[in-house]
């Protein structure tokens, strides 16, 4: 039998036919499609038991009560805590916390900079090196050249840092300022006592907001949103006064565009209408028995703030001003809000005071729907730190930022003055800097100046959890745990009643990080002597436990401890009244409102910043999810857009998406143009919170940090940064 080609063909045909009747092709076809269900390179989340842990979010100062959903030991979701508690809520940033916890930009272990490169070191080594350096400084009697920039002044962790500086012998504990500092000032000046305001928006029936970003991140955003929704449910009015149709303005019942920087003038103009028409009589409050300096105030507004003048300055029609003033006073429980945007810049003291006079005229203090004046929770009752001679001598040295003295007598901390102070000295007056819970190099205006100052400081220790801009300038990083990994007391003052929340560890620290509280205690102990003595606690947790005492049990259960006792100690000043004008305020040369920097001729436009819930602009930066929600008219690829009125754009021959060069007295940047009818002609706006150089590839290099373009303007009254924008010019590229 000869085997030829034909036989082979036949064999093949048989094999083919046979295969069709075997499971092989069919099973392979099925299996190959099943293979595509679980490609080896696609992750399959591991399943496990679900558990829920309540904690307090500390990603912003809001301090919301949240619930973390866990599967096994993994955090999978952050949700709002289901509770009637006013403090429970969540915003876009809080929802991002699982992403931030597992973020690739987390610093995974203590780092030390050696020849411009990061070298991993142990916590022990880091603490030892820091202690060694600090010992040396102290030996040279330079303990006052240690400074600390802290994101907050409330709570035990900032208190520990401040205590450390005191025990070490430095007065230079500086916190990052915000509108809250101005709030405190406004009320301590006019009501006589240290108190913080709580605006009862939900119960008001007429809210006038002078540029306050009620729905753009101001205060505790979740609480503000809830309050706004209640306003809507009750069909109450919200009037928004600002040059840009912000999200808040869009939701308002009326948007009154105003020439930026003239908000205070408008408020005084309204006051003039109110006083002129004696509308305050309805309110039955303006008796001499409750106010001081009214006649002087009356004379002032009548003289300088006539309707016509105010209308000219603010760009708002006279009848609108009158109507607004009348409606405000007609309302049952009106309230005037102040502080621009999300309130990250303190702003002009006089502007805030001017607006607050409206609250005074409406007599809404400590009334439902008005402004509650509350005292800050006072629960940290530590014994005074032990000071040795060295410390005692230097602790009374002058503060570097000049706060509390001379023309800065009103302020406690003036971070904004630091760059200038450092840059103007031959050698840095700061030899050693702690940076905790903040990213000043990114968040401070006038980046160039700040950079120069930071570069000049010989040694910087960062306690950041992330490789942010300031951390990357540090010499040693002792990364803090993420808030889901640590205990911490969070003082929340944005709600109706001041509360202290307790952040609890939800998971064990996933990296080799150290709680900043523990870090500072360890450093103190390593320094020995009276400094160590001042820190009698074994670790941060015992410190917290001892500080909170019985409150901790409440907080463990309820998350928050609410200070029921300290409702108000306002009007505790000598007169016991609201003081329109008094000796202290006279010292601040009344009513100079801060204008934008730059020559109008050279820079015909005005650049303002806007805050957005979708872009975190503070110490915590955007999660990838948040950046994903940012519109393509804000960021496209890496280009940032500025908003401009189509009329103004036409003058500069700019179309939608055109590239343009934006120049301000402080810097230049290439931007793209987004035409927006919701912005006043002549004004351009840019979002804050972009243009990061630190963090990860999901954020780095996207857009421009507006702080590079805006300088700071020292408020003549308070010394705080009061810049709200800068003059600018655009050129088509």
């Amino acid at each position, binding site marked *: 039998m000869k085997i030829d080609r034909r036989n082979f063909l036949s064999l093949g045909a048989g094999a083919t036919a046979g295969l069709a009747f075997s499971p092989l092709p069919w099973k392979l076809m099925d299996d190959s499609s099943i293979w595509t269900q679980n490609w080896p390179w696609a992750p399959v989340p591991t399943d496990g038991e679900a558990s829920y842990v309540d904690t307090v979010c500390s990603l912003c100062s809001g301090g919301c009560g949240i619930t973390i959903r866990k599967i096994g030991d993994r955090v999978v979701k952050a949700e709002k805590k289901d509770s009637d508690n006013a403090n429970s809520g969540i915003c876009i940033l809080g*929802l991002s916390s699982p992403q931030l916890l597992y973020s690739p930009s987390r610093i995974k272990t203590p780092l030390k900079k050696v020849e411009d490169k990061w070298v991993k070191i142990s916590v022990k080594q880091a603490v030892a090196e820091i202690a060694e350096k600090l010992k040396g400084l102290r030996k040279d009697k330079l303990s006052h050249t240690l400074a600390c920039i802290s994101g907050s002044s409330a709570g035990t962790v900032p208190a520990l840092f401040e205590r450390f500086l005191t025990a070490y012998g430095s007065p230079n504990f500086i916190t990052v300022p915000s509108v809250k500092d101005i709030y405190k000032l406004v009320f301590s000046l006019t009501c006589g006592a240290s108190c913080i305001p709580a605006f009862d928006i939900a119960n008001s029936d007429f809210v006038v907001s002078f540029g306050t970003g009620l729905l753009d991140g101001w205060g505790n955003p979740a609480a503000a949103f809830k309050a706004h929704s209640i306003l809507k449910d009750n069909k109450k009015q919200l009037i928004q006064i600002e040059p840009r149709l912000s999200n808040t303005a*869009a939701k308002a019942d009326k948007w009154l565009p105003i020439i930026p920087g003239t908000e205070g003038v408008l408020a005084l103009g309204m006051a003039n209408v109110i006083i002129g028409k004696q509308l305050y009589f309805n309110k039955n409050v303006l008796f001499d028995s409750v106010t001081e300096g009214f006649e002087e105030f009356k004379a002032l507004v009548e003289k300088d703030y006539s309707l016509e003048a105010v209308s000219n300055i603010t760009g708002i029609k006279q009848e609108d001003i009158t109507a607004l003033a009348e409606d405000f006073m007609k309302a049952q429980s009106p309230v005037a809000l102040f502080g621009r945007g999300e309130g990250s810049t303190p702003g002009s003291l006089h502007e805030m005071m001017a607006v607050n006079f409206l609250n005074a005229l409406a007599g809404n203090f400590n009334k439902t729907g008005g402004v509650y004046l509350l005292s800050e929770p006072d629960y940290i009752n530590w014994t005074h730190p032990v000071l040795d001679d060295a410390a005692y001598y230097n602790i009374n040295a002058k503060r570097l930022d000049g706060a509390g003295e001379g023309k800065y007598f009103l302020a406690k901390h003036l971070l904004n003055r630091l760059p200038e102070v450092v840059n103007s000295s031959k050698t840095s007056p700061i030899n050693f800097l702690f940076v905790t819970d903040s990213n000043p190099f990114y968040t401070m205006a006038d980046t160039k100046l700040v950079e120069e100052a930071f570069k000049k400081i010989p040694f910087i220790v960062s306690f950041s959890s992330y490789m942010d801009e300031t951390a990357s300038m540090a010499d040693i990083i002792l990364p803090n745990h993420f808030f889901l990994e640590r205990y911490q007391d969070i003082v929340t003052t944005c709600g109706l009643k001041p509360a202290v929340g307790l952040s609890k560890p939800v998971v064990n620290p996933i990296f080799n990080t150290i709680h900043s509280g523990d870090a500072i205690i360890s450093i103190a102990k390593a320094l020995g002597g009276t400094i160590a003595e001042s820190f009698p606690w074994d670790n941060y947790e015992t410190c917290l436990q001892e500080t909170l005492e019985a409150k901790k049990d409440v907080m463990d259960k309820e998350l928050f401890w609410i200070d029921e006792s300290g409702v108000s100690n306002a009007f505790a000043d000598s007169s016991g009244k609201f003081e329109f004008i008094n000796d202290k305020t006279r010292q601040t040369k009344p009513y100079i409102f801060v204008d934008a920097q730059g020559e109008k001729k050279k820079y015909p436009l005005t650049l303002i910043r806007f805050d957005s*819930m979708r872009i975190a602009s503070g110490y915590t930066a955007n999660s990838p999810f948040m950046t994903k929600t940012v519109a393509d008219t804000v960021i496209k690829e890496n280009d940032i857009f500025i908003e401009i009125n189509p009329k103004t754009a036409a003058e500069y021959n700019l179309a939608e998406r055109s590239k343009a060069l934006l120049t301000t007295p402080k810097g230049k940047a290439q931007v793209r143009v987004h035409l927006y009818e919701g912005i006043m002609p002549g004004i351009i706006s840019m979002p804050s919170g972009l243009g990061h150089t630190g963090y990860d590839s999901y954020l780095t290099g996207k857009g421009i940090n507006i702080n590079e373009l805006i300088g700071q303007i020292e408020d003549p009254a308070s010394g705080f940064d009061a810049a709200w924008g800068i003059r600018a010019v655009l050129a088509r590229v």
Partner: protein
Amino acid sequence: MSKGSKHKVKKFGMVIDLDKCTGCGACMVACMSENNVPFKENESKKLDSITWMRVYKLENGKSFPEADICFLPRPCMHCEGDRGHAPCVSVCPAIATDYDHNTGIVSQIYTRCFGCRYCMAACPYHARYFNWRDPVWPEGMEKFLNPNVSPRMRGVVEKCSFCHHRYQLALDKAYAEGRDKIEEDEYQTACAHACPANAITFGDLNNKKHSVYRLKKNPNTFRLLERLGTNPKVYYHSSREWVRRAGDNYLKHEAAKA
């Protein structure tokens, strides 16, 4: 659903109050976090950016200072169409998406979908998204993935599921406790639960006790593109006439639906 028991058909839906929506984007992130939605370094190409819940910014087209904007969150509308013939469901050649007559939820089964994208062509709301690439979670970030939602592979379509897995989990709990029914608050979508402004209300449109039943009857309530006959289950509420008009197409002389 055992035989014989009187089974009342549910119709889950939403009422979104556009007067309250602040455009903050919390719903979008809550959704992405809940549903293992992938993300990449550049998400500014919005036509290649998976957002089951997308917040649109509507403009009234007027000049300064009469300009007005409104934010409109757009999940999947879970169209009922004509008796379950949603625009996307009837076109799918492989039954990778179906209309559940017991819940009114339009499903999307990633492992059945072979990526023809006909459903995307059919959906006028652009609620359906295609996985143009393999999803990648940077090292460590895969840890926050939710096991109740399966991550998608490249080449398939995905969309909002009204967080159906949350319904499944609520049912599981009810069964374990010897119950058949679940309460309104036991099943809430991630977006509705997260909305800080309480603008999103979710529930059974057929159930008189649920808030959505009452809210959808408000005269200022409308649905998107009703005139196409998609019969969506997401209702919107706005006190502004121009917003209501923007919800559908009208000829110039036509008045918008009251």
